[in-house]
């Protein structure tokens, strides 16, 4: 099973876990299975049309999936997938 690194704002969906292991042959399958184990997480990553949101990036290893096969990018059991949303803060309380 591939390892998915969960960013801090989404850990509320994974009971606080920083990493989860998920089955799936592609990023799309993996996100579907992640939604099964962590309900609610997928809509934070993908929009209603199922595309990755524009302020979120998904990396398989060091590669941005937008430059691979996007959601159809193949995932191996030893792959590490990172979900990296933009951080916007800096100034406030």
């Amino acid at each position: 099973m591939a390892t998915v690194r969960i960013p801090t704002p989404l850990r509320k969906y994974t009971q606080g876990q920083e990493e989860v292991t998920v089955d799936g042959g592609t990023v799309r399958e993996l996100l579907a299975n992640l939604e099964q184990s962590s309900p609610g997480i997928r809509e934070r990553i993908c929009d209603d049309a199922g595309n990755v949101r524009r302020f979120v990036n998904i990396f398989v290893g060091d590669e941005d999936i937008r430059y691979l096969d996007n959601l159809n990018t193949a995932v191996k059991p030893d792959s590490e997938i990172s979900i990296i949303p933009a951080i916007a803060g800096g100034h406030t309380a």
Partner: protein
Amino acid sequence: MIPEPRIQSPPDGGAIDAAAVARTQFVVLGAGGLGCPALLGLVAAGARRVTLVDDDVVDASNLQRQVLYETADVGMAKTLAAESQLRLRARDLRLTQVRRRLDARGLAELLEDVDPAATVLLECSDDPGLKFAANDLGLARGIPTVIAGVQRWRGQIIAVVRGAACYRCLYEAPPPAELAPACSAVGIIGAAAGLFGHWMALLAVRLASARADVRGELAGSLHALDLRDMRVQTLRPRPRPGCPACAGEGPELDVSTARCAAR
């Protein structure tokens, strides 16, 4: 009598050119959690020309991370309190206070007359839209730009120069208001802001020191760090085909941006 700091280039080949740093106009957007440590780092490294943009006043709740301020500053304009404090460290500092909240149009106006070859922009605000505007305008005007953000224990930082992948190559748009976490609810660990603010200062003085043709080596990588596990993720996005910022199009000037209402 306060001794003037003696800035020396480090022995490793002189990554920092003190004369270039002293000549450079550093434009700092935001005098808060990131801006305060960035300003300390800049001035300690020899920066003497600073434009500081902030419309806020010091609040007691800021002191935990906005390290330029003290209890006596509460209620004072941040730009004024910051200038007073920084002047204690560098009497010859020339700091221009800009007491307003900028949007893309305001930033475009602010950058209209600067010399791109002698300016570095630091985006330290809490406004996601302004981070993208700084990216777009920095590229359009040829001004090296450092952008960072912090939330709780983690942050991200990237230097943007022409020719390297930019913030908008990586993230096409800021998060919409309904999905951006309320800043007051999220909070910032003071030390995380301190680390990223000084990191911004380091990148900014290195950009000021580097010849234009090698600045690209400092740019184009986004570093993400969570202070709880101290694991740095370095993303090296490719320049995105069709990226409007890399094409020099500049920001859309009339789009209202998502920002935290809570301050």
